[in-house]
Every structure is written in structure tokens, then in C-alpha cells.
């Protein structure tokens, strides 16, 4: 296993909603490791706890027990949590959603540059970083377009650029290929693999998409709130 100090390490994570007789254990015992530069799949049926795990990792839902390390920093340890969750989400975690959820009133460049701007980077520097990433993701020619003027695939690439722009050690992708056809879905996964390698980012892709599951080398399956690691096919991406 590669250096996990900068990836994701989850140990014995639990999440319980409610109390007493009505309590529901959404996550019963989750262990997970994702190394920098690695893309792993997280699969499981509806209601198995995938979204809960993503919310816990995304620092928007507090776990009930366990320990989570993101980018070498412990963010949750059995009741203790990192004080500034907002800064954690901004600087250490990138999000890619099922729908791109770009800000409709900002152009492509500013959609990507917004994150570094929020972190206090100057507008010029933030836009420079955004344009570099947009070039890497082959959407620089749409830098001045508004989100509504982009195709679905272009929007998803812009959302990947937004997730990467602050160079986070971790990216959480929630069904990123759901609205795309096979070709575009595989293109997105190829892109995520490239970016993971290029920026040493640990990426978790939550998916139901049968088209892309064979591309993962490692897969975590979640059933009844427990994770089960299994080897993936690791099919080569053309």
C-alpha cells in the first residue's frame, strides 16, 4: 500500500441516526484505506450507507464513533472532530457530484477559481490556476462560457476542475457518471485516474454504474453498513 499518510484512512467508523428503539445504524463498521494517486470504487445497493459514508468523509455529518484521517490529518476520532470543518472541506476535500452543480451565474473560469478565492488567493492567481486545470481537462476553450452553454460532459469536466483546483489530497465523487453515456462515463473515469496520478489525489467514486465498475482496481462494497474490500478488474482505459 502506498503512503496512506496523505490519503484516506477510516477505522471502525459507525454512524447511528436517532436514539433508543428508533435508532438506525446506517454505518456499523467501516474500514477503508485509499492511497494518494489511487481511485477506488464504493458500491452497494440503495440504503446500504454509501451516502452516509460520503457525508461523514465530506465532514457534513458527524460520525458516532471511529476514526477518520484525511490527507494525513485526523479529522474525527471517537467524538473529537477537527474544529474548522468549513476550511477542511475547502482545502482538503474536493467534491464531484452526480449533477455538476456549477454556479449558474459564474462563468467556467470563475466557477473553478471560486475555491482558491474563498481560501484567500488573489483573483488573478486563482484564475491562473483555474485556467491551467481547465487546459489539463481540455475545456479551456470554454473558459468564458456560462455553465448553461456547456454540454453535460463539459460541465462534469469543469466540476472535476473545481474539485481539484485547491489541490486537495482527497476527492469524493458521488455518482459522477450517472447522467452520461458509456463513452463519456469512461472518459470521466479516465480523467479522474489521470488527475489522481498527476496530483497524487486519493479518489473515492461512489457508483452504481455497471459500465465503470470494471475499471477500478480496488472496490469497497458496502452492505448493511459494513464495508467489504474486494479486488476489481482494473480494466485498462483506452
Amino acid at each position, binding site marked *: 500500500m502506498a503512503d496512506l499518510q496523505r490519503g484516506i484512512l477510516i477505522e471502525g467508523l459507525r454512524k447511528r441516526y436517532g436514539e433508543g428503539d428508533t435508532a438506525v445504524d446506517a454505518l456499523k463498521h467501516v474500514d477503508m484505506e485509499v492511497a494518494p494517486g489511487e481511485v477506488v470504487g464504493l458500491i452497494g445497493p440503495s440504503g446500504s450507507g454509501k451516502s452516509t459514508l460520503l457525508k461523514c468523509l465530506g465532514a*457534513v455529518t458527524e460520525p458516532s464513533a471511529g476514526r477518520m484521517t484525511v490527507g494525513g490529518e485526523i479529522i474525527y476520532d471517537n467524538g473529537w472532530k477537527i474544529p474548522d470543518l468549513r476550511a477542511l472541506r*475547502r482545502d482538503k476535500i474536493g*467534491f464531484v457530484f452526480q449533477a455538476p452543480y456549477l454556479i*449558474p451565474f459564474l462563468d467556467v473560469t470563475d466557477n473553478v477559481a471560486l475555491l482558491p478565492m*474563498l481560501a484567500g488567493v488573489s483573483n488573478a492567481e486563482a484564475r491562473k490556476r483555474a485556467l491551467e486545470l481547465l487546459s489539463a481537462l481540455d475545456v479551456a476553450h470554454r473558459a468564458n462560457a456560462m455553465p448553461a452553454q456547456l454540454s453535460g460532459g463539459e460541465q462534469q469536466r469543469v466540476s472535476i476542475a473545481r474539485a481539484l483546483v485547491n489541490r486537495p489530497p482527497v476527492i469524493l465523487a*458521488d455518482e459522477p457518471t450517472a447522467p452520461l453515456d458509456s463513452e463519456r462515463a469512461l472518459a470521466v473515469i479516465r480523467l479522474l485516474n489521470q488527475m489522481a496520478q498527476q496530483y497524487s489525489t486519493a479518489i473515492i467514486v461512489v457508483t452504481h454504474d455497471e459500465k465503470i465498475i470494471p475499471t477500478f482496481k480496488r472496490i469497497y462494497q458496502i452492505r448493511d453498513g459494513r464495508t467489504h474490500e474486494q479486488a476489481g478488474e482494473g480494466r485498462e482505459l483506452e
Partner: protein
Amino acid sequence: MISLAGRDILHSWGKFVFTGVGLGLLIGVTLSMAGVYRGMVDDAWSLLDNSGADLWVVQKDTLGPYAESSSLYDDVYRSIRVMPGVASAANVTYLTMQVVQGGRDVRAMVVGVVPGGPGEPGQPGYLVAGRHMTRGHYEAVADTAAGFKLDEIIEIRRNRYRVVGLTRHTVSSAGDPMIFIPLKDAQEAQFLKDNDVILQQRRRTSENPAFDRPGVPGLLDSIITSQSTNTYVNAVLVVIKPGYAPEEVAEPIRRWKRLQVYTRTQMESILIGKLIATSAKQIGMFLIILATVSAAIVAFIIYTLTLGKIREIAVLKLIGTKNRTIAGMIMQQSLGLGLIGFIVGKIAATLWVPIFPKYVLLLPGDAARGFFAVMLICLLASLVAVRAALKVDPAEAIGG
């Protein structure tokens, strides 16, 4: 950091501009209402300024001559003239009536003044055309708002008056234009009856044996004469000598002549505090309602716009945007809407005010106060939307 609010407004400018125009028309109405009140106050001040008086001597225990009717004998002014500190005193009558101008009815305040030049109490101070009245009968000076031109003939009761001078902005406290005519004519006009009534009154008097006694041959004629003449005026306007305080001159008149005397300050408080007080309250109520409606509209619009961006707000929060940045964005949009509304409202009010039938005075100070009130209302109205935005859970951006 880029302005999220500015970008959103630019992105959906049509929505903001149209909403701003709607809000602006409402603000325009609000500014106009304030202007109507200012116009009434200004009319009241003009009325006092145009009278040229320092003191108003009226019937005891009345608020005359503008707020209540007042009646004094027309020789009272002689005794007032010799009181200490009085420079000049002149009778004046006021009669509000309809006069015909070019086939249309004009409501006017007919003012009876002693003919003379400018500076005389009651005389219009400044003419925009023509000259002051110099003859004792059948001349008139009219305000331009009444629509008369020089040499035009005005019919008042049964008499005809030639317009020899024109004034501007000489109006009553109700905003009616003034028409100045000689005092004697005005006194006659106040109580002039039609011919049938006069004949009937003379017959009744002559057939009353008490008035037609054989031993007193001139009695009947004297009584008939007294019935057809008016020896009353509404007020005596007094100009005081330099170096005298108004109250110093007013007090001896009150004491020794047993008349009511008002100084300029007292007359202002009567006009503004009593005569137009109800109208002012009425306008005040309108302003409160309009401000409330404006606030409700802004709150509703901003709240609706915010609800339409819940997903984007959740994403912004998820990627680390501070709550104050999101609150600032909503507040700035609300203020932007208010700014558009105020500009539209100010322009609209400036354009439509001249076509109002009564004088509407838009003061820069009121506009400035209105601007800050609009901004405050928009700020407060945005709080509902801010509250809704801050309650958005960033987890909403993640499915499940």
C-alpha cells in the same frame, strides 16, 4: 474575491430590472406622497409669506382667518394702526369660491385687499406680469395657476374684474390659486345675494311695521341700506416696525382691543399643526402602508430568488463558503434591488409630479431619507431569505 451578488444580478438582469421597476413605481408613489405633504406645507408657508404680515389680528377665540372663520368690523384696523410698534395695518377678506375661466370652473381663493403697491399688507409681493391694483374697484391680480391672462375678464358674483397683474405660487393652504380684488368689492361679494332675494328681503323689511314707522321717516331706508352692505372683514394684517418683537406688539392688542392676535410662528403652527394635520396623518399612514408593502415585496422576491438557489447555496457551503459570504450575497442582492427601485422611483416621481393638479414638492432631503429608508427596508427584508439560506445543510449537495 468576486462579487457573487453582482454576478447573479448581471446573470439574471432581466428579472432584477423588471422587479426593480415594479418596486420603483411603488417607491415613486411613496416619494410623491411625501412630496404632496411637502407641497401642502410649502403652500401654507407661501400663504403666510404672500400676506406680507407680521401679525394677524382676528376675531377673539377663533383660529382665523385660514383655519376658522373670523369676522371683525372693518374700522378696527384704524385703532390697531396707532398701537405701539405697528408700522401699518390693513383689512383683508378671504373667500373660497368657483370662478369661471375660459368655460371651465376654477376653484380659487378670492382675497380682498386694500389697493396699493408691493409691501402693503395683503398685497402680492411679486408680480410675474402686469401691475398691482391701483383702483378701488373692478381690477384683479390673479395667480397664473388659475389660468387667467392679462386683460382677461373675471366674473365674481355679478361683477366683472379686469386682470391687471399675474402672480406665481400665491395659493391658499388648500393649494387653490389666489385672485386678489379690491377690498370693498370683496366685502360685497362675500354677502352679495341674487336680485330676487334682495327684492324679497326689502319687501319683508318695508312691510314690517316696526321698521316703517310714520314718526321716523328715514328709518326704513337706513335699515335697508345696512342690510345690503357688509362692514366686516376677516382679519387685519399688521406689519410691525423694525426693532419690535412680534409678541411685544401683539400683547397690547390682545389686552386692550380684546382681539386674537397671532404671530408668524403661531400662525405656522395653526396651519401645519391644525389645518393640514389630518391630511399629514393621512399621508403618514399611506407612507407606512407603502413602506410595509415595499418591504413585503422585497422580502418575498428575495426569499423566492433564494429558494431557487438552495442547491447552489448548499454547494457553496459544502465547498467551504463562509456563512457571512452567503448572507452578504443575499443582502447585496436585496440592496441592489432597492437601488434599482429607488433610481426608477425617483425618476418616475420627477416625471409625473408636474402633472399633479396640486403642488407637489420633492425635496432632495426627502429623497436622501427615502434612499436610506429603502436600503434599510431591503436589508431587513433580506433577513428572512438569509435565515433560510443559513439553514441550508451542505449535505443537501450530496445525494442520498
